[in-house]
């Protein structure tokens, strides 16, 4: 359970970090909070000749309102995100997802960007980014570019970032109108990887019809999933006419590689997933109908 040898680099700026990453190539890995990477190194699931530590870069930390979006620096710790008043008001889904991210000792080091770049299928922040249509800001020596959350998650622990790109920040749309949010998870122990979970963000128009809906799924594939079919089925419908259990079942129809492991079979996970979606839908739609969100 000891990591293999590596060289350690702690550049002073993010520009230096991406330059170094480009120079060192595939033998190097970015180290942020290390709460997923270090266990993988310890268990020798991963091996790198070089680690580039970005955890002290102040320029990657911060939370800022930018027009209709909230920018969160990739290096902002999960503890900071979970406790921040601007996040609570502007992106309540993130506030509610945070207590499910590991344990408080993990959240003290773990970062928002690290969680999203790690792209674990059971990660809360990746699923929240998907459900909310967040925008990823990435940097390489070739410059900056943006990647929509829908285009970001590629496969098991894989993203569409190029090997010389680093996630520097994420922009989340600020909640608008009559909206509701909920996070529901089922796990053996609070803070463990969920057997299955769901995040729902829903918005209603003046006639109580669903005008926007994002459903993120946890632990139900090799990547964070979005339940597109279920979302499509509820848009334009009256809130009162939608049955949570049906939405839960619909959310499971697109899934192709639900994992089976020691914790749960694929069929059990799907059952749990449908129930989590139904519960999350119920809570979110009731909040939207009540007209105001309280994180």
């Amino acid at each position, binding site marked *: 359970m*000891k990591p293999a040898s590596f060289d350690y680099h702690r550049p002073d700026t993010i520009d230096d970090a991406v330059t170094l990453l480009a120079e060192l190539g595939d033998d190097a890995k970015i180290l942020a909070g*290390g709460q997923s990477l*270090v266990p993988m190194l310890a*268990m020798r699931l991963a091996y790198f000749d070089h680690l580039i530590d970005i955890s002290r870069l102040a320029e990657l930390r911060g939370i800022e309102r930018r027009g209709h979006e909230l920018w969160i620096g990739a290096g902002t710790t999960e*503890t900071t995100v979970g406790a921040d008043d601007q996040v609570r008001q502007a992106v309540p889904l993130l506030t509610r997802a945070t207590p499910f991210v590991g*344990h408080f000792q993990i959240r003290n080091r773990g970062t928002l960007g690290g969680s999203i770049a790690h792209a674990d299928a059971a990660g809360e922040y990746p699923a929240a980014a998907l459900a909310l249509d967040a925008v990823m800001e990435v940097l390489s020596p070739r410059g900056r570019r943006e990647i929509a959350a829908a285009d970001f998650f590629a496969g098991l622990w894989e993203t569409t970032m190029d090997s010389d790109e680093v996630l520097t920040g994420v922009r989340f749309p600020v909640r608008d109108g009559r909206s509701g949010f909920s996070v529901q998870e089922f796990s053996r122990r609070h*803070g463990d990887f969920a057997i299955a979970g769901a995040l729902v963000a829903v918005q209603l128009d003046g006639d109580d019809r669903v005008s926007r809906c994002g459903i993120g799924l946890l632990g139900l594939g090799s990547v964070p999933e979005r339940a597109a079919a279920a979302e499509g089925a509820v848009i334009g419908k009256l809130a009162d006419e939608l049955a949570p259990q049906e939405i839960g079942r619909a959310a499971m129809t697109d899934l192709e590689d639900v994992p089976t492991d020691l914790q749960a079979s694929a069929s059990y996970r799907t059952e749990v997933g449908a129930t989590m979606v139904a519960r999350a839908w119920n809570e979110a739609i009731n909040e939207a109908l009540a007209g105001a969100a309280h994180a």
Partner: protein
Amino acid sequence: MHEQPIRLSVNETPVTDSVEPRMTLADFLRDKCGLTGTHLGCEHGACGACTVLVDGDAVRSCLMFAIQADGLEVTTVEGIASPDGTLSPVQSALRECHGLQCGFCTPGFVTSLTALLRDNPDPTDDEIREGLSGNFCRCTGYQGIVAAAHRAAALGSVTQR
């Protein structure tokens, strides 16, 4: 190979050393500083036995490399009691409430509870259980530990008056 110098504070004592980058903070504390109160159960962040305070915040010392603690202040379980040996409210409460049996997990509970009660001096039962969800104990069944957390909160509020 490739040792790099570090300078940090451990239990308010300055420490200067050199480490292989792959050495975790937990191994550094145990093997280089001789502070074997920090225990290693799983070495991948699940059990919580290795929890220490870094700049006051509870973290897993097995999920942080010693070199990352360069310039920071680390407090281990050895640094929780007063220099004269008087137990902290958390330590006293764990003893009073039978919050330990074999003691292997106890350093992680002491450091986690110390940080938890600093940030939330009067936690509810649910807040305590959620706060301690990242620490395994295989002896006590947790009831004594939760009772100790309430007791420590009461002792702490008395101490601060």
